[in-house]
Protein backbone atom coordinates (compact mmCIF):
# COMPACT_ATOMS: atom_id res chain seq x y z
CA UNK A 1 0.00 0.00 0.00
CA UNK A 2 2.85 2.39 0.90
CA UNK A 3 4.53 1.48 -2.41
CA UNK A 4 1.41 2.59 -4.27
CA UNK A 5 1.31 5.86 -2.32
CA UNK A 6 4.98 6.50 -3.17
CA UNK A 7 4.25 5.87 -6.87
CA UNK A 8 1.29 8.27 -6.76
CA UNK A 9 3.39 10.99 -5.05
CA UNK A 10 6.18 10.48 -7.61
CA UNK A 11 3.61 10.69 -10.42
CA UNK A 12 2.22 13.97 -9.02
CA UNK A 13 5.81 15.27 -8.63
CA UNK A 14 6.57 14.47 -12.28
CA UNK A 15 3.22 15.86 -13.54
CA UNK A 16 3.83 19.13 -11.69
CA UNK A 17 7.45 19.23 -12.84
CA UNK A 18 6.52 18.74 -16.50
CA UNK A 19 4.09 21.66 -16.27
CA UNK A 20 6.65 23.87 -14.46
CA UNK A 21 9.63 23.21 -16.71
CA UNK A 22 7.39 23.07 -19.79
CA UNK A 23 6.15 26.59 -19.07
CA UNK A 24 9.69 27.76 -18.19
CA UNK A 25 10.88 26.54 -21.59
CA UNK A 26 7.78 28.03 -23.28
CA UNK A 27 8.77 31.44 -21.89
CA UNK A 28 12.43 31.08 -22.88
CA UNK A 29 12.26 29.15 -26.16
CA UNK A 30 9.01 30.63 -27.55
CA UNK A 31 7.55 33.73 -25.89
CA UNK A 32 10.62 35.88 -25.14
CA UNK A 33 12.29 35.35 -28.59
CA UNK A 34 8.91 35.97 -30.35
CA UNK A 35 8.05 39.28 -28.65
CA UNK A 36 10.20 41.51 -30.94
CA UNK A 37 8.48 39.95 -33.99
CA UNK A 38 4.94 40.70 -32.76
CA UNK A 39 3.39 44.03 -33.92
CA UNK A 40 2.91 46.53 -31.07
CA UNK A 41 -0.88 46.53 -31.35
CA UNK A 42 -0.93 42.75 -30.82
CA UNK A 43 1.51 42.65 -27.88
CA UNK A 44 -1.26 43.13 -25.25
CA UNK A 45 -2.59 39.66 -26.18
CA UNK A 46 0.63 38.26 -24.72
CA UNK A 47 1.18 40.76 -21.89
CA UNK A 48 -2.40 41.04 -20.68
CA UNK A 49 -3.83 37.57 -21.40
CA UNK A 50 -1.37 34.75 -22.14
CA UNK A 51 1.56 35.67 -19.87
CA UNK A 52 -0.52 36.20 -16.67
CA UNK A 53 -2.30 32.87 -17.24
CA UNK A 54 0.99 31.07 -17.97
CA UNK A 55 2.59 32.65 -14.88
CA UNK A 56 -0.29 31.43 -12.68
CA UNK A 57 0.28 27.78 -13.68
CA UNK A 58 4.08 28.34 -13.71
CA UNK A 59 4.40 29.45 -10.09
CA UNK A 60 1.86 27.02 -8.61
CA UNK A 61 3.29 24.04 -10.50
CA UNK A 62 6.76 25.07 -9.22
CA UNK A 63 5.42 24.97 -5.66
CA UNK A 64 3.61 21.65 -6.07
CA UNK A 65 6.71 20.10 -7.70
CA UNK A 66 8.76 21.06 -4.64
CA UNK A 67 6.12 19.92 -2.13
CA UNK A 68 5.58 16.51 -3.78
CA UNK A 69 9.36 16.13 -4.23
CA UNK A 70 10.05 16.77 -0.55
CA UNK A 71 7.24 14.39 0.52
CA UNK A 72 8.65 11.75 -1.85
CA UNK A 73 12.18 12.13 -0.44
CA UNK A 74 10.80 11.93 3.10
CA UNK A 75 8.74 8.80 2.35
CA UNK A 76 11.78 7.17 0.70
CA UNK A 77 13.90 8.05 3.75
CA UNK A 78 16.60 10.11 1.99
CA UNK A 79 15.42 13.69 2.60
CA UNK A 80 18.14 14.62 5.13
CA UNK A 81 20.88 12.62 3.35
CA UNK A 82 20.03 14.47 0.14
CA UNK A 83 19.90 17.93 1.70
CA UNK A 84 23.30 17.50 3.39
CA UNK A 85 24.64 15.97 0.13
CA UNK A 86 25.67 12.63 1.60
CA UNK A 87 23.37 11.36 -1.15
CA UNK A 88 25.03 13.76 -3.59
CA UNK A 89 23.30 13.29 -6.93
CA UNK A 90 19.68 13.54 -5.81
CA UNK A 91 20.81 16.17 -3.27
CA UNK A 92 22.28 18.42 -5.94
CA UNK A 93 19.13 17.95 -8.02
CA UNK A 94 16.99 18.91 -5.04
CA UNK A 95 19.05 22.00 -4.23
CA UNK A 96 18.95 23.13 -7.87
CA UNK A 97 15.16 22.65 -7.85
CA UNK A 98 14.81 24.56 -4.57
CA UNK A 99 16.92 27.47 -5.90
CA UNK A 100 14.81 27.53 -9.07
CA UNK A 101 11.52 27.52 -7.11
CA UNK A 102 12.86 30.35 -4.91
CA UNK A 103 13.67 32.33 -8.07
CA UNK A 104 10.15 31.74 -9.40
CA UNK A 105 8.34 32.95 -6.29
CA UNK A 106 10.66 35.64 -4.94
CA UNK A 107 12.35 37.11 -8.05
CA UNK A 108 10.53 36.27 -11.30
CA UNK A 109 6.92 36.61 -10.08
CA UNK A 110 7.32 39.98 -8.24
CA UNK A 111 9.25 41.42 -11.18
CA UNK A 112 6.77 40.06 -13.76
CA UNK A 113 3.93 41.72 -11.85
CA UNK A 114 5.70 45.06 -12.38
CA UNK A 115 6.69 44.28 -15.99
CA UNK A 116 3.15 43.26 -17.00
CA UNK A 117 1.50 46.21 -15.26
CA UNK A 118 -0.21 44.10 -12.57
CA UNK A 119 1.61 46.32 -10.07
CA UNK A 120 1.87 50.00 -11.02
CA UNK A 121 5.44 51.33 -11.24
CA UNK A 122 7.22 54.02 -13.27
CA UNK A 123 8.51 53.24 -16.77
CA UNK A 124 12.16 52.91 -15.66
CA UNK A 125 11.29 50.47 -12.87
CA UNK A 126 9.07 48.54 -15.29
CA UNK A 127 11.90 48.09 -17.80
CA UNK A 128 14.34 47.10 -15.04
CA UNK A 129 11.83 44.57 -13.64
CA UNK A 130 11.30 43.03 -17.09
CA UNK A 131 15.07 42.58 -17.54
CA UNK A 132 15.52 41.09 -14.05
CA UNK A 133 12.64 38.64 -14.62
CA UNK A 134 14.10 37.64 -18.01
CA UNK A 135 17.61 37.06 -16.63
CA UNK A 136 16.37 34.96 -13.69
CA UNK A 137 14.11 33.01 -16.04
CA UNK A 138 17.21 32.33 -18.18
CA UNK A 139 19.12 31.35 -15.03
CA UNK A 140 16.41 28.79 -14.27
CA UNK A 141 16.54 27.50 -17.87
CA UNK A 142 20.30 26.99 -17.45
CA UNK A 143 19.85 25.27 -14.04
CA UNK A 144 17.02 23.06 -15.35
CA UNK A 145 19.52 21.13 -17.49
CA UNK A 146 21.74 19.78 -14.66
CA UNK A 147 18.71 19.58 -12.33
CA UNK A 148 16.88 17.20 -14.69
CA UNK A 149 20.07 15.17 -15.27
CA UNK A 150 20.46 14.75 -11.50
CA UNK A 151 16.82 13.73 -11.07
CA UNK A 152 16.95 11.14 -13.86
CA UNK A 153 20.45 9.84 -13.10
CA UNK A 154 19.72 9.46 -9.37
CA UNK A 155 16.93 7.00 -10.27
CA UNK A 156 18.72 5.11 -13.00
CA UNK A 157 22.48 4.90 -12.53
CA UNK A 158 25.36 4.96 -10.08
CA UNK A 159 28.05 7.48 -10.95
Amino acid at each position, binding site marked *: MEDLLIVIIRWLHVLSGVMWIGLLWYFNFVQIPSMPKIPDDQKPAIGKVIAPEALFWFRWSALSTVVFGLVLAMMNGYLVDALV*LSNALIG*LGMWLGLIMAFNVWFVIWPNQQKALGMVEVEADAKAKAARTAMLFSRTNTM*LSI*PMLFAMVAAQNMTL
Partner: protein
Amino acid sequence: MKNPLESLPTTVVMGLVLTVAMVLLVRAIGS
Protein backbone atom coordinates in the same frame (compact mmCIF):
# COMPACT_ATOMS: atom_id res chain seq x y z
CA MET B 1 29.72 43.58 -21.68
CA LYS B 2 26.60 41.64 -22.69
CA ASN B 3 25.22 39.20 -20.12
CA PRO B 4 25.71 35.65 -21.54
CA LEU B 5 22.22 34.74 -20.29
CA GLU B 6 20.74 37.11 -22.90
CA SER B 7 21.60 34.49 -25.53
CA LEU B 8 19.45 31.35 -25.44
CA PRO B 9 22.05 29.08 -27.14
CA THR B 10 24.73 30.29 -24.67
CA THR B 11 22.31 29.58 -21.79
CA VAL B 12 21.83 25.99 -23.01
CA VAL B 13 25.60 25.48 -23.48
CA MET B 14 26.24 26.80 -19.95
CA GLY B 15 23.60 24.36 -18.66
CA LEU B 16 25.39 21.48 -20.40
CA VAL B 17 28.77 22.58 -19.01
CA LEU B 18 27.25 22.78 -15.51
CA THR B 19 25.88 19.25 -15.98
CA VAL B 20 29.36 17.90 -16.81
CA ALA B 21 30.84 19.80 -13.84
CA MET B 22 28.15 18.36 -11.55
CA VAL B 23 28.84 14.79 -12.73
CA LEU B 24 32.58 15.27 -12.12
CA LEU B 25 31.85 16.69 -8.67
CA VAL B 26 29.57 13.78 -7.74
CA ARG B 27 32.18 11.27 -8.95
CA ALA B 28 34.82 13.07 -6.88
CA ILE B 29 32.85 13.20 -3.63
CA GLY B 30 30.96 9.92 -4.21
CA SER B 31 27.21 9.59 -4.65
